[in-house]
């Protein structure tokens, strides 16, 4: 009796976890103006609206601009800090590491109120710069954690070997350390982009009407006039996530191959 119960329970929970995500996808292709099943006819109506309707088009462009800016800024800052702190385990370094993770903990609404007050004060409210900076604050911890993790996985002897063969510290960094931690940097960058793409709350507080992102547009569409366009947007979100993940795998595989060649066999 026990294994049957276990199996049934496992299947039910899996269904609970995955079914909602699966249920939203077909509605992106409904011909109806309602977000309901059964779907009367399949159509590209709502995906077309996403790319032709100025509001949606603009919001997709904004998401790409802001997501791109956030990715560059968060990846740079997070990677530099992870490189700087990698060999330290003092109390002070521990405090700094905790400090870097704190933006993940502070409730977004609290941060949003503070940013709204402060950004108006310094004159970057309602600007792309303001939104990118805000997204970077909450996206950076993912980069920091991911890069620190991959740096910790590097065998220190490899870098010592490079240095003992006459490589200057900057050459070691360029030819050994960075290539070996590339997968961590890339996953961090992807997570930073995903965080920015999904961010609603800070955007709600500090973005003006010109910086409406796709997530923000979805949020207000659900609140004001529900239409299958949100299912289409969700479809774009999910497909986008999968595409980016595949891209990263591809890059990782290729650089992995290059790394093998440059560092030599036996190190993976």
């Amino acid at each position: 009796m026990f294994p049957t119960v276990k199996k049934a329970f496992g299947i039910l929970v899996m269904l609970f976890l995955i079914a909602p995500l699966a249920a939203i996808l077909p509605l992106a292709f409904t011909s109806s103006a309602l977000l309901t099943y059964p779907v009367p006819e399949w159509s590209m109506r709502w995906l077309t609206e996403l790319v032709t309707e100025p509001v949606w088009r603009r919001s997709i462009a904004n998401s790409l601009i802001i997501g791109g800016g956030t990715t560059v800024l968060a990846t740079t800052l997070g990677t530099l800090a992870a490189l700087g702190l990698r060999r330290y385990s003092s109390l002070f370094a521990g405090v700094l590491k905790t400090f870097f993770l704190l933006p993940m903990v502070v409730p977004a609404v609290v941060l949003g109120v503070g940013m709204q007050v402060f950004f108006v004060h310094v004159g970057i409210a309602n600007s792309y710069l303001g939104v990118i900076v805000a997204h970077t604050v909450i996206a950076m911890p993912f980069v920091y954690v991911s890069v620190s993790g991959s740096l910790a996985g590097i065998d220190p002897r490899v870098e010592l070997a490079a240095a003992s063969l006459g490589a200057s510290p900057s050459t070691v960094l360029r030819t050994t350390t960075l290539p070996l931690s590339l997968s961590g940097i890339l996953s961090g960058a992807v997570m930073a982009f995903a965080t920015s793409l999904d961010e609603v709350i800070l955007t709600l507080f500090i973005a003006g009407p010109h910086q409406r992102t796709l997530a923000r547009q979805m949020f207000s569409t659900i609140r004001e006039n529900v239409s299958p366009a949100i299912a289409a947007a969700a479809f774009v979100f999910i497909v986008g996530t999968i595409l980016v993940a595949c891209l990263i795998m591809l890059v990782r595989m290729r650089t992995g191959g290059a790394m093998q060649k440059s560092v030599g066999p036996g190190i993976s």
Partner: protein
Amino acid sequence: MTARLGPHLKASALVLPLVLFLALFFVWPIIAMLKQSVSDPVVHNTLSQTSAIAAQWNGKAPVPAALQDALVADIRATTDRQEMGAVVRRLNSAKSGFRTLMRKTRRAIRKTDGPINLGEVDKRWNEVAWWHTIAQASSPYTDRYLLAALDYGRDKHNQIVALPEDASANRTILARTFVISLSVMLSCLAIGLPFAMVIASTSGWLRNVLLAAVLLPLWTSLLVRTTAWFIILQNNGLINSALQALGITDQPIPLIFERTGVIIAMTHVLLPFMVLPIYSVLLSMPGNLMQAASSLGAHPIVAFLKVMLPLSARGIASGSLLVFMSSIGYYITPALIGGPSDQMISSVIAFYATESANWGMAGALGLVLLSITLLLYVVYGRLSAEKKGVA
């Protein structure tokens, strides 16, 4: 010495940009928010002469002539109507009647350039109470927002008292936030603990599939997941259509804009945070413990209670804390799936900040939410540090 300083300098140069960035765009905004919760600059800035003299007044009758003259001078000097309007609103919110009193006084002051006896303009100016209100409001700092965030206020003797029940609902909302978070935590535990045990008891591809089922939602956008639940929980959504098709109900069961819907959706969103910590603790446990217990004659339920539960307690505790900590700050899911009576503290903060421009209240409630979250985070940090120490 310089040889040892070199690498430190380089490390500092690498870390510094992020430290400066966070100090400017993370710490400063939070300080700005906290400052809003205690600042009350309106009267202090506009009635500046009055404020300076009021600070030195001992509060006893008779009202000093200098204070009266300063108020007349301040009112005369303030030509900006909006600025004066803000002062009147601030004073009237502390003591009703100030609106009419100030209107009358300003009219009298506008008529003449000479000295004015305020007591003759309105005899209320002879009472100390009105001046006390001005004196209290003239400090640039206030605790009234912080008190109001917990449904307290000050009476006319400046004593802290509970506000009447219809005047404020913040404690109700705080209690509701705790109740919803606790329900979400418990339902995550009820599903997550057995599911983590199921995953830990499998191996090979089956375990990978089960883990992927936990990780996939974690990787999907929160907004997409909330949207999905919005579609499913609708009155003509999948759940209600299925129930009606099966003949279980005739009428759609209200799920959307209801507490049930909020808890279901939040449980779905936060379940991975419960499953993963418990799963990682279970993994470090020898797999044959339950078998050993039952071979010694323990009923499976007894074995679970006496062996499995105590050993996985740490994972349960960190998972529960993580879920609870995340859910008290939730905004998007209750905002989209909940009704008006399911809004949590974050929604109230957002309302004060974006819709009524009441920065003082937004800041004060933000401080309450921030303190609770950080407190839970410290406990969580202790817990995971201990775990490392044991292992």
